[in-house]
C-alpha cells in the first residue's frame, strides 16, 4: 500500500472539499448577482414592472431557491473568513481543519433561525398579496 503524502493545505480531505465548496458557491453567487441587479433595475422602468416581477418570485419554489442561495452565501462568507485566518493568522494553517468545523458550526447556527423565519414567511403565503 503506497502511503499518502503528508497532509497539505489544499489537497485532499477537508482542505480540498472546502476549496471546492468555496469555488462553486462563489460562481453561483456571482451569476445570481448579475440577475439580481437586472431585476432591481426595473424600479427605473416603473413601479408596476418592478412589483410584478418581484411578485412572480413570491412562490414556494423561488422561496426554496432563496434559501439555497442564502445557504451558499453564508458558507462562502464564513469559509472566506477562514481562508483569511489561514493566510494572516500565524496558527491559521495549523488549525485550518478545526476552523472548517467552526465554519460549519456557525453555518448551522446562522441557517437554523434564518430558515425558520424565511420558510415560515414563504409558506404562509397570503394569496395574491405581498
Amino acid at each position, binding site marked *: 500500500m503506497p502511503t499518502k503524502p503528508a497532509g497539505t493545505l489544499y489537497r485532499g480531505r477537508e482542505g480540498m472539499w472546502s476549496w471546492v465548496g468555496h469555488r462553486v458557491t462563489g460562481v453561483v453567487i456571482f451569476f445570481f448577482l448579475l440577475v439580481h*441587479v437586472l431585476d432591481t433595475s426595473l*424600479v427605473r422602468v416603473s*413601479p408596476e414592472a418592478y412589483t410584478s416581477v418581484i411578485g412572480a418570485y413570491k412562490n414556494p419554489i423561488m422561496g426554496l431557491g432563496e434559501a439555497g442561495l*442564502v445557504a451558499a452565501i453564508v458558507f462562502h462568507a464564513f469559509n472566506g473568513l477562514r481562508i483569511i485566518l489561514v493566510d494572516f493568522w500565524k496558527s491559521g494553517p495549523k488549525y485550518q481543519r478545526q476552523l472548517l468545523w467552526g465554519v460549519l458550526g456557525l453555518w448551522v447556527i446562522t441557517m437554523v433561525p*434564518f430558515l425558520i423565519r424565511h420558510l415560515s414567511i414563504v409558506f404562509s403565503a397570503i394569496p395574491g398579496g405581498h
Partner: protein
Amino acid sequence: MATPTISAPRSGGINYNRNKRSGSSFEMIAWLFMRLSGVVLVVLIFGHLFVNLMAGDGIHAIDFGFVAGKWASPFWQVWDLLMLWLAMLHGTNGVRTIINDYAERNATRMTLKTVLYIATVVIVVLGTLVIFTFDPCPAGAVTDLPSFCPAK
C-alpha cells in the same frame, strides 16, 4: 557514528530571483483585495439579508414602495452602492481566476474574460445609475408608491 554537520545557510551574497519584485504587482493587489473586500462584504451582505428577508414582514414586504423607502435614505444608497461595487469586483476577480485555471486554450481564455469584463461593466454602470437616478415618486405612477409620496 559521526553526526553530520550541517553548515549554516549562506544567506546574503546570493541573489535569489524570488527576492526581487519582478513585473507588476497586480496579482498581489488582487489577492489582497479579495481578502479586504471579503471582510467588508460580510457586514454589507449580512445586513442586507437581515433587513430584506428577516426584519418586518420579510420577503413578502418587498415591492416598489419597499425599495423606494430604503433609497430615500442616503445611508442605504451608500450601503447598496458599496455592496454593488465590492461584490462585483470581488466576484469578477474570482471568476477571472477560475477562467485562468480551467480554460487552457489562449483564445478560449481571452473570449471568456472579454465576456466577463463586458458583463461586469454593464452591471456596475447600470446598478450605479439606478441607485443615483432613482425617483421614489415617479410622475404618473399610482400603485405601490411609498407612503411619503404626495397624493396624486
